[in-house]
């Protein structure tokens, strides 16, 4: 499937390069966060993942997004199969079944299932011809995405499962979800939340939420991560402690400092200035994504770009807010920056989907 030269010309190089710049900052931060541990070689793996991610991005870009969305239901089946398989066959790592281990590489199917969900949601709502939607119109797509979320949550990986919800709602809203339905969903969400607190949530999940409300109650246990991250971020001050000089990260006070909490290390070592720069880069990527949605040539393009942009936006905002101690701790990586091959791959593929929509806006 050769790519048309004209298409290549229309690639949004600024967005691609900004994404790669963020990933590069991520690698540098991983170097710093791992330097005093036995994981000091991790940045090399991350570089490989970025390289692989670029290939995946090219593949994503090379197939017309309309063909991808059109076949989303076909991708949904193997994605669900993979999620079931990971539950059945994956080894238990740190108490969870999230990863296949193939030839020494850990592969996290949920990261890719997210993208399938994005295509699927874009397809369902783009094909809907109604001007306004009620709750009944959300039922079937809701069940399909909900099943996927349940499988992911069962691993358990509540963070990833949770990201599907705002993406779904954003696209439904775009498709014309009525105000009444939105309020009904909010009310329903509260009921489900209360029920799941009583029946479904595991103790460690509850602990994360209680410790968010009162971290001092168990400062060595569940509240520890939030407290230490806040200290790391806050102590960074305006200009930061200097690259590789963060005491919280270098002395190991900060758990998960090169995965979910990588932004904490960045904030400690590079201060508010570093935070503003990186958040600015993310803002640029998100702005280009929404802009792409706005200039897409068809409904499918609008919905796909919005779905991807919402997914990315939610992940970025939630992760950064979590690092600052604003929201409960959830296992949610920061797209492009956090260490982890599957996350990097799926993030770059998401970027690829945006590029795909944008570069084909003039072509019939």
């Amino acid at each position: 499937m050769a790519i048309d030269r004209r298409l290549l010309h229309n690639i949004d190089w600024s967005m691609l390069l900004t994404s790669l710049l963020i990933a590069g900052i991520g690698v540098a931060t991983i170097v710093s966060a791992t330097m005093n541990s036995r994981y000091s070689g991790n940045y090399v793996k991350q570089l490989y993942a970025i390289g692989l991610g670029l290939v995946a991005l090219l593949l994503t870009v090379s197939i017309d997004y309309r063909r991808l969305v059109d076949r989303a239901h076909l991708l949904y089946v193997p994605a669900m199969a993979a999620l079931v398989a990971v539950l059945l066959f994956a080894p238990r790592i740190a108490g969870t079944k999230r990863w296949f281990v193939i030839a020494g590489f850990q592969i996290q199917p949920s990261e890719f299932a997210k993208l399938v969900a994005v295509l699927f949601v874009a397809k369902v709502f783009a094909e809907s011809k109604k001007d306004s939607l009620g709750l009944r119109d959300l039922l079937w797509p809701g069940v399909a995405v909900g099943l996927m979320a349940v499988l992911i949550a069962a691993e358990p990986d509540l963070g990833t499962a949770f990201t599907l919800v705002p993406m779904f709602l954003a696209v439904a809203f775009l498709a014309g979800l009525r105000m009444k339905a939105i309020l009904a969903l909010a009310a329903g969400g509260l009921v489900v939340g209360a029920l799941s607190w009583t029946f479904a949530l595991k103790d460690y999940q509850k602990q994360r939420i209680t410790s968010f409300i009162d971290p001092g109650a168990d400062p060595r246990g569940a509240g520890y991560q939030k407290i230490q991250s806040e200290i790391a971020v806050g102590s960074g001050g305006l200009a930061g402690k200097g690259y590789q000089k963060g005491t919280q990260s270098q002395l190991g006070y900060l758990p998960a400092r090169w995965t979910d909490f990588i932004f904490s290390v960045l904030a400690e070592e590079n201060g508010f200035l570093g935070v503003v720069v990186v958040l600015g880069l993310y803002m640029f990527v998100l702005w280009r994504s929404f802009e792409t949605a706005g200039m897409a040539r068809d409904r499918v393009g609008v919905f796909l770009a919005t779905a991807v942009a919402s997914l990315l936006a939610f992940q970025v905002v939630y992760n950064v807010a979590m690092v600052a101690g604003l929201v409960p701790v959830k296992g949610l990586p920061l797209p492009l920056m956090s260490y982890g091959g599957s996350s990097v791959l799926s993030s770059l593929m998401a970027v690829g989907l945006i590029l795909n929509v944008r570069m084909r806006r003039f072509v019939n």
Partner: protein
Amino acid sequence: MRLYEDLRGLQRRLTIIQAVVIGAMVLVTGYFWHLQVLRGRYYRELAENNRLRTVPIPAPRGPLFDRSGRILAENRSSFNVVLTTEHLRHRDESLRHLRQLLDIDVEAVQQRLNTKGPKFRSVVVKADASEGDVATVEARRLERPEMSVEVVPLRSYPLAEAAAHSLGHVGEITDRQMEHAAFEGIEAGTVVGQAGLELEYNRQLMGRDGVRRIVVNSRGVEVAEAEREAPVDGPSAQVSLDIELQQAFEEAMAGEAGSVVVLEPETGEVLAYLSNPAYDPNAFSLGIEPELWAHLNKDPEKPLINRPIQGTYPPGSTFKILNALAALQENVIARNTRFHCPGYLAVYGTVFRCHKEEGHGTLNLERAIALSCNVYFYNVGIRLEIERLSRYAKMMGFAAKSGVDLPHEVSGLFQDPEWKQRALKTRWYPSETVSVSIGQAMSVTPMQMARVAAVVANGGRLVRPHFMRKIGGQPVNTEHPKDLGFKPSVVDAVREAMLTAVREGTGQRAKLLGLAVGGKTGSAQVVTSARLASDKKARKNQPHGWFIFFAPARGGKPAVAGAVLVEHGVAGGQSAAPVVGRALARYHGVPAIGPGMTPPPDTIPSPPQPEAVPVAFVPDDPPTPAAPSPAPPPP
């Protein structure tokens, strides 16, 4: 273009979504401004608290030297295996592992971990570890970072038992001490004085601990040193003890329970101080094992009691010295006043016996002291009356602490009408005065009796006994003894009588060739005479033997005055006097020549040099040599 029509509706909704995202991003960025810029200083402090710990560097305590500069207490470097207790989560597991590696008492360590103290500290798991232990721990530095080895100054007492009760010992500060004002500001885990001079002069000897500010990682393991303030060593101190005299008395007292106090009569400096049985203070430096502690506490001979200042006994016949001094000073008798001793005195409707059943006959004061005649002193005491006896006894330090620089001294007791009225609400019977005359109805410490001996030796001045001479080069305890106002002739008469007592009386076993020793024997009844008669063999019923004594300066060695008490030694002449004889003989290198004292034949030197005979203790004494003038013995 239906398509573009359609997209216009979408555009509006898209803008709303975009606005939500931008709003969220701005909010989050604003919160980072709040955390990092507005509250940055606060969080920076928290981060510093996370990473920096203050660890004291123990300052070595000041060493103690004897009067000639020989070491009494010093510090040697010792290795402690310590456990850093910041994270107690794995404490039990760590302890289990440690027990496998080293032979440690897990329960004792648990107890130490449970005492209050700062959050970050090292708890000693094994004190004074061997080189093998050190190597074992060092080899596991990586897998067991919570275990480490530190070098600490360990207090060590080369004399061991010999000076346990004077020097005392050290140990980690106890919870009770931490609440006490004298230890204010001293942190948990600090080694402080626990007894003796170590306790009395704790603050002065302690020096100032240094401080290390260290960087620790999240496991509480030190990764770097940020700052170091060196400790200031405690100042060295000079103690008045004379090691040679101390050892001479220790050897002479070997196997006996009891006390020795030897003072320099001019100053009150303690030259030798012994409480038998003793314990090894070095055992406490390591943090004493509970079994040893229990053993020391349960020992019926009570080795932890500081007998010279805590043991109280009736002075018995040694009180006759005080009786004589009072009577002469008050002109109740003259030095040649004679009384007849038929072996008893019948007075106030009671018969008071002398220890010599057939009686001493008629005798003067000198013979009465030399032979320890009870009847003579019954007569003296009756004439002095209880009020004057009491006044003189208290003037010479009875029923009061001597003020020696040791903790926990007791004052003893002197029964007189006032005391009886107050304590027993009964009146005084004249017959009780008779008992007081020969040292009954009162209890004294050996330290108090040593002071009495010093009064006789120095011409009538009461000393405050003390050990410490200098701390950090600064003289301490420099006050002068208190002049009691005795006429010189009074003290001379008693002193000569005491010389006679050793030369030819009850104290002959303290007799030395070439050295004029004066003394007075005594025995302190433990049970009533009737009880003693019923069970004469039981050791616990036997009276204690007393000997108070003095001897002149000789060959650069100081004049001495002191008291020896041998528990259950029966008579002082049999038990306590020989201790003094043996000790002074060894100290001065002269033979002991008293009865039963067998010097090696080849060490008997030529007859005593005349210069040794004059007893010149007091510089301002009249220079006339006090020629002994024994009165003719009664027929």
